[in-house]
């Protein structure tokens, strides 16, 4: 069946092979954009398709949201990447041979993420997440500098340990399912697992979830397991930082949510909520405290990603229709905002020739368009009104306040510390003495403005279609 579901896997897979063969970076950059656009347009058709599930692939309301978000941000990032890469070629940081590899890997990553999102099989999902890790490791190390290789190595080892633990958890889930659904493929098919999860042995499920939380949690970047994240974001090419932060963390989170839904069916098993709430809060507080000390601008925003993933995991951990809705909205807003910020930061680093915060200054005077859009992104990411993140953070906080007021205090404290840290750091960059080179910026503003425009729109007015869609998913998550 060549339907839309297979198409969003086939388009990236075929283009990856094609891009690996074709020479000429101008052509391949354009082709990359076209392929990403085609995948995005195909994913839009998923809205009119009825939910289906086979032994390997699955389409329901939950992954529709994730797929459309993923393909949209991959498309805009590919547009940004085309202009970013052009500059990298000119300054000689990358050679055309590396670029061919880069574009092929970009599409491979799209393939792996889409596969992880539509896999109905927990083993297949695991393989897809591993593949996504491998491709991003290769891209983080693409500059071949000492720092880049070190970052890639760290990401590689920690990511591998993470997915190893996730695999152990997956095996335990199969062991729990085997007495009930029988041997063979059924024990790995997620829809079958959810249907029968009530009869599974709760003790085995509990242990399995701990491994899954640690394993996939490493990839989400939750606090004690986050060590790879800042390095990988800071040293890789900026389009990859945007995709890592905006999308790959979400994919790992999605895997976690699937298993959470499975555990929710079994009333005797532990509720994953408190575990997720705790890890989420630790991430928020930890990242907020670390933000102020950063000297590298990309690293700083990487810590901000840890903070926001913490908020999202916290919201999903609280559970219930309202908190789930808030978590989904926050995830969408964070993906859009953080990738827009990385777009701006990438161009700024290219103009100034450095990522050190101390060496960048007075951006609103020297390159106003870039400076102000980064400023708008920062205003959005710290959660000031009227932008979308304010809405979603407000929903997270207010829905928590009704049920666990003390947790709200900790959460709000973290958010405020992060706000203070980011503004203190970004102030001189924006309005201080102009520092560094002042070459005119040849940026691609369209992806940046599109993202920020959407975030602004979501803050002012959420279309009812979107609201009902998110509400359905929130109900599904339980």
């Amino acid at each position, binding site marked *: 069946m060549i339907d839309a579901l297979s198409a969003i896997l086939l388009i990236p897979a075929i283009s990856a092979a094609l891009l690996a063969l074709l020479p000429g970076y101008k052509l391949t950059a354009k082709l990359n954009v076209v392929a990403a656009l085609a995948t995005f347009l195909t994913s839009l058709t998923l809205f009119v398709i009825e939910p289906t599930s086979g032994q390997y692939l699955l389409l329901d309301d939950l992954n529709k949201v994730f797929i459309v978000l993923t393909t949209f941000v991959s498309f805009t990032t590919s547009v940004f990447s085309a202009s970013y890469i052009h500059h990298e070629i000119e300054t000689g940081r990358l050679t055309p041979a590396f670029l061919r590899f880069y574009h092929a890997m970009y599409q491979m990553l799209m393939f792996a993420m889409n596969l992880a999102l539509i896999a109905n099989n927990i*083993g*297949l999902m695991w393989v897809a997440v591993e593949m996504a890790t491998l491709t991003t490791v290769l891209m983080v190390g693409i500059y071949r500098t000492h720092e880049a290789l070190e970052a890639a190595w760290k990401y*590689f080892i920690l990511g591998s*340990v993470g997915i190893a633990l996730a695999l152990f958890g997956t*095996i335990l889930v199969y062991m729990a399912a085997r*007495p009930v659904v029988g041997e*063979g493929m059924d024990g790995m098919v997620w829809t079958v697992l959810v249907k029968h999860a009530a009869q599974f042995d709760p003790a*085995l499920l509990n242990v399995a979830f701990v491994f899954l939380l640690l394993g996939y949690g490493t990839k989400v970047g939750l606090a004690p397991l986050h060590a790879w994240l800042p390095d990988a974001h800071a040293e890789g090419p900026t389009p990859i930082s945007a995709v890592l932060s905006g999308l790959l963390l979400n994919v790992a989170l999605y895997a976690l949510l699937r298993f959470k839904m499975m555990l929710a069916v079994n009333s005797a098993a532990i509720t994953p909520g408190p575990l997720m709430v705790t890890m989420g809060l630790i991430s928020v507080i930890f990242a907020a405290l670390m933000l102020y000390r950063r000297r590298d601008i990309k690293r700083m925003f990487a810590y901000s990603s840890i903070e926001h993933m913490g908020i999202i995991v916290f919201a999903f951990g609280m559970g219930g229709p309202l908190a789930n809705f808030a978590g989904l909205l926050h995830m969408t807003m964070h993906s859009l905002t953080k990738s827009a910020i990385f777009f701006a930061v990438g161009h700024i680093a290219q103009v100034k020739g450095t990522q050190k915060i101390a060496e960048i200054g007075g951006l609103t005077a020297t390159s106003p368009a870039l400076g102000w859009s980064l400023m708008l992104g920062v205003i959005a990411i710290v959660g000031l009104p009227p932008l979308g993140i304010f809405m979603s953070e407000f929903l997270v906080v207010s829905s928590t306040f009704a049920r666990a007021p003390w947790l709200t205090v900790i959460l709000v404290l973290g958010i405020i510390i992060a706000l203070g840290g980011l503004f203190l750091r970004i102030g001189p960059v924006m309005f201080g003495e102009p520092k560094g080179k002042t070459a005119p910026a040849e940026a691609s503003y369209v992806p940046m403005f599109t993202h920020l425009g959407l975030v602004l729109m979501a803050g002012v007015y959420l279309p009812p279609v979107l609201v009902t869609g998110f509400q359905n998913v929130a109900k599904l998550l339980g």
Partner: protein
Amino acid sequence: MSSLQFDIAHLLAGSLVLASFMMLYQDRLYALLNVYALHAGVLALSVAWQAYVQQAPHLYVTALIALVFKAIIIPVALHRIIKKLGIHREIENVIGVGLTMMAGIGLVALSMVVMLRVTPGADALAREDLAFALSVVLLGLLIMVTRRNAVSQVVGFMSLENGLVLAATGAKGMPLVVEISVAFSVLIAFIVIGIFLFRIRERFDSVDVQALDRFRGERR
């Protein structure tokens, strides 16, 4: 299942834990690699035995991968990398051998307690296998955290992965075991290539002259 079949499976899985312990106290890289080759060999035997007991022919493929790839190709490749880069003496333990062994014993006890307690319903062979597999996984993690050297960390990771393969074969009738073991082999191949690149970069005077030129070009 006859008790002899069970005993042999038990013996092989237990030997894997023993080999993990042997890796814990090696202080030379070559010796560590040799023990790892033994570890992978025992894994191959254990998987082959499971394939016979469960009458699951696809598991023979996994056993073959373990034998050829993990017990022969990877150790030989690592041997050559170590020799080429001249790093065979470097092996630093973060904590002493005694403490490491004590921690290892603690971890094995922990995994026995956890796994045996949560799997009373599963059949005896799968139960024992899972408990041993978790021990091997945790010992692999311990090796990774107690070594500073990149190569020995990788060996730790590979032994951890052997534990996972043991767990996957122990879960009777689990699909995708072969695929997962191939996926892991690819991962490990990447890691080994990674060490190679990483070490060249760290001491770029040793092998690749072109890399040296590019490095200086960036710094200017």
